């Protein structure tokens, strides 16, 4: 019996007909994809590594498979609230406990690519966002706020991490912007192309690392190392981002993609 | 004071057998040993049950020693021995067998040396030859015995003023002797010019200073005079023997062999002197060792061998017939059988049945053995005086 009237059926039809487009927002997980670099005295984020167990050889004549290893925060990844000290006591704060309904959520794309190109240390402020809303409309609740910086185009160059003697230089929000997005716009999380949700110099902000601190302190999520945010419409895209169900995990590498209307 | 050894009264040495040598053989040492026994059997009518003593030498019978060999060849001896001394093994087998027969431990001892030479045998024999060689000689260019004797020759020539011409004279004479021996591997005459111009192998050792490894077997019988007579075998007697091992380790390089220690005992027991020898069968892995034996066995004084060689003719018809079958230098070196062929050739000459030309009126022969370059020199030496019936 056909269920042609259902939302799922409509969506299926749109997918089949091509009316609903699908775009990959994920960087390829490879050994040389950069990971965040912390000061040397701290523990470091393990890069992605792969060791072949067998490849149609004496270790397994008919099959090919690899052991892989990485940090939870390697490559394109999803940060759960427990990642930050501010979210440590929240319920359902680890990736295995995050409600599955949050893995599919709409997105609003805030384009700061011009500002970021002009200033790698561009700081997203409440004032900028209010101005943006005046021009584009209000940010709806329970949306991913996706910061389009075109930073993903720097992957494979030193300019991606952009690590100078005084630390990393990449755009990100200040505390005012984060308070605004979390408390006044009820965002589901912040989705970025840079290696972290915070600016490269975020540790010098007041409070330090405002995106991590405020997002996770309020049960919101982070999505980092995304690509192709420039392909999405400002409104109307749906992001699918389902982390691995790692018991007690602070984050997880994952495949992220978005659906949006072709027109 | 060395006690004078007892005489070899009543001991008969007879029936020299040579299985003709070949350069390379696909057969085993066991096959060659069997071939020698078969030849002995044909000559004497003896079968396995008639042999109650067996003395064996080989480099290529591994993993079998004399034990493996007697079971392999169906012998049931009441006395046996294994002689691992290569070039000294013939003289040593002779002395041991003689005493066994004399004491009644055995009635008839077959002394036998057999070695095969497969294509890679020589390299393999070298590679596993001795611990000192492995540790301290072969890793130095792996020239094998050529390199070891090159160092001995270099020093000998330098110390005693001996030229290559002297060694050449010995080699040329031995080749002349070989031409009458149908089994000799070298069949063409050799001139001193050819000797002098042969290519260097390990200076100052040149190609014609070196023996050619081959496969072959040698055997003879040691028994009582009565038994030899009953078998109708012509027999020689042993006048005297000596052996000595690892003599003069203090010499930085070998310039003399163990014979020097016992040469007086040898001639005293033999009751004769070097001048009384009708032929000499010296171990000849390299001509320098032949020269050394001439000095050390009393034919001339140390350092005077060049003049001695100059004064003598070493061909069969010469003043001092040397290695009348051609020796190893011209007949080939069949491994441990190379340490037996001097005994069998001496026997043949004094028994009047040589492979090639007969030394006129040969009655007494001196046989000398020299063996086992364990490291930087030959360790084992021996000598025996054989006398045929008048």
């Amino acid at each position, binding site marked *: 019996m056909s269920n042609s009237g259902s939302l799922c059926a409509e969506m299926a039809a749109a997918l089949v007909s091509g009316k609903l487009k699908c775009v990959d927002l994920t960087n390829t997980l490879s050994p040389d994809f950069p990971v965040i670099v912390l000061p040397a005295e701290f523990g470091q984020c393990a890069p992605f590594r792969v060791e072949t167990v067998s490849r149609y050889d004496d270790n397994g004549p008919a099959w090919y498979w690899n052991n892989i290893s990485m940090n939870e925060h390697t490559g394109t990844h999803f940060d759960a609230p427990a990642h930050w000290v501010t979210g440590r006591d929240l319920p359902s704060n680890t990736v295995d406990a995050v409600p599955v309904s949050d893995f599919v959520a709409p997105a609003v794309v805030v384009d700061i690519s011009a500002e970021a190109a002009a200033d790698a240390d561009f700081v997203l402020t409440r004032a900028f966002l209010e101005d943006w809303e005046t021009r584009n409309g209000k940010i709806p609740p329970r949306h991913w706020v996706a910061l389009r910086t075109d930073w993903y185009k720097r992957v494979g160059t030193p300019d991606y991490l952009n690590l100078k003697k005084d630390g990393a230089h990449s755009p990100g929000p200040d505390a005012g912007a984060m308070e605004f997005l979390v408390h006044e716009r009820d965002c589901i999380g912040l989705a970025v192309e840079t290696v972290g949700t915070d600016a490269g110099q975020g540790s010098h902000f007041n409070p330090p690392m405002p995106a991590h601190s405020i997002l996770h302190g309020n049960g919101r999520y982070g999505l980092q190392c995304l690509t192709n945010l420039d392909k999405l419409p400002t409104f109307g895209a749906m992001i699918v981002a389902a982390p691995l169900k790692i018991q007690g995990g602070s984050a997880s590498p994952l495949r992220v993609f978005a659906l949006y209307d072709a027109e | 004071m060395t006690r004078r050894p007892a005489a070899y009264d009543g001991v008969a040495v007879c029936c020299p057998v040579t299985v003709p040598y070949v350069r390379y053989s696909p057969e085993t040492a066991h096959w060659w040993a069997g071939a020698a026994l078969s030849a002995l059997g044909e000559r004497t009518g003896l079968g396995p049950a008639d042999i109650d003593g067996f003395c064996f030498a080989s480099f290529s019978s591994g993993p079998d020693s004399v034990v493996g060999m007697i079971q392999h060849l169906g012998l049931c001896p009441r006395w046996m021995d294994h002689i691992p001394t290569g070039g000294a093994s013939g003289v040593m087998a002779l002395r041991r067998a003689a005493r066994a027969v004399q004491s009644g431990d055995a009635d008839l001892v077959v002394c036998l040396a057999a070695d095969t030479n497969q294509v890679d045998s020589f390299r393999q024999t070298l590679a596993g030859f001795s611990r000192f060689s492995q540790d301290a000689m072969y890793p130095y260019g792996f020239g094998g015995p050529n390199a070891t004797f090159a160092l001995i020759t270099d020093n000998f020539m330098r110390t005693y003023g001996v030229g290559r011409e002297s060694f050449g004279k010995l080699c040329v004479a031995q080749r002349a002797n070989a031409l009458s021996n149908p089994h000799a591997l070298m069949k063409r005459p050799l001139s001193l010019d050819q000797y002098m111009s042969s*290519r260097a192998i390990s200076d100052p050792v040149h190609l014609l200073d070196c023996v050619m490894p081959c496969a072959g077997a040698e055997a003879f019988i040691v028994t009582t005079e009565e038994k030899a007579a009953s078998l109708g075998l012509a027999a020689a007697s042993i006048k005297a023997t000596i052996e000595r091992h690892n003599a003069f380790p203090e010499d930085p390089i070998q310039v003399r062999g163990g014979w020097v220690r016992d040469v007086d005992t040898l001639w005293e027991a033999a009751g004769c002197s070097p001048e009384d020898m009708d032929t000499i069968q010296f171990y000849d892995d390299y001509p320098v060792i032949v020269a050394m034996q001439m000095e050390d066995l009393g034919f001339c004084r140390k350092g005077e061998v060049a003049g001695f060689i100059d004064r003598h003719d070493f061909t069969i018809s010469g003043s001092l017939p040397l290695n009348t079958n051609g020796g190893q230098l011209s007949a080939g070196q069949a491994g441990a059988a190379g340490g037996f062929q001097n005994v069998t050739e001496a026997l043949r000459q004094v028994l009047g049945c040589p492979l090639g030309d007969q030394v006129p009126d040969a009655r007494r022969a001196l046989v000398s053995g020299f063996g086992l370059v364990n490291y930087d020199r030959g360790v084992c030496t021996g000598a025996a005086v054989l006398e045929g019936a008048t």
Partner: protein
Amino acid sequence: MSNPLSPPKRKDPLTPSRLGHVPPRLRSRAAKAMAVRAGQGRFVLQVCEGCSEATYPPRDRCPHCWGELRWADQPQTAVLLAETVVRATTDNFFREHLPWRIGTVQLDAGPTAVAHLHGDVAIGDQVRMRLVLDRGGNPALFALPLKETPHMQDDPQLRVFTSAPKHRRILVTDGRTRLGQDVAQALLAAGAGTVFLGNSDPLLRHDGEEWIASTPNIDMVPLDLTDSRSVSELAGTLGGRVDIIVNTAGYVRPGGVSSGSRLATLQTAMDINAFGLLRLAQSFGPALGARSDDGVNSAAAFVDINSIYAMTGNAGFAGFAASAAARLSLVAGLRGEMASVGIRVASVLCGPIDDAWHQAVPPPKVATSRVAQAVVQVLQDGLEQVCVGDVAEDLAARWQQDPFLTIREENL
């Protein structure tokens, strides 16, 4: 004098490479004990505990009084008594190196011995003996001129026993560090043809970039020892063109066993120090072994710079010392494997290096330039193991006397 070594010509692509044979390897246990000391650059013979006579070749009992033998350093002088030039051999290694000159020497220590000869020594000469290791890792006596002669190191027979850097192409695995750069500089000064300097993260700046860029004959190459693919890709690119590998990579972090350390830190240490070496060996070993007798710039050596605490453990750096021990053990295994194909495997063992990770460790600390000099010495003398710096030398001396006491001392 020796003819100065010319840089190798490019290979004729139609000529097959000479296989990496090694000299005969079957040796006694005593000869192996001699090899260990040869690898440390010592000149030793066995001396009798009873009659004090020195003996050679290696024995298991004294030939003079049957007393017990022990290894002891000996005077290195000798006189050359006799010589020969070997022009024919059945051995595959020496066949490729004929003619080969050897001689008999009278050692001032007592015994005579057969030795390899330098081209500049002649009969009757006083010579200086060295105990070297041959391509198969076995001990060999080598007679050198008493005094340095021109281009002495370039003697073709001597060069068979060394891994001299001259004209060779050398991979130094971590060029991001001062140590790697100092090693590169010392190798170039010793005549290396090219130094390939590994860079684990070409996207991340590091100190010394300007020096590297402005120095001729250094190529920076991508190499991350924690990434199997990176190592095998570089081996694919450079495998047939690297003659020597010097593994300068290392990861040092303080920490105890029960406290003060993290497993994740130890994992990284293992990944770089132990598994990194394994990846290098697996990716580059076969290509090195195939070229161990390939002319002037034949493949020659694998040198690993490691911590002396590999031998004992180390309070305060327990995890690091464990990774160093694993590394040392892997090097021992690699040495055995590479000996059969003619590649020397050496360890340069250091005390604490004067770097950021040893700030809390009191002096003396070993300077990276000193370690670099040791690497050059190991290659030029064909050694297997050297200790660099006061701390390493002291620990090695104590360890030799009483290994278990030294382990206790280093972990209290």
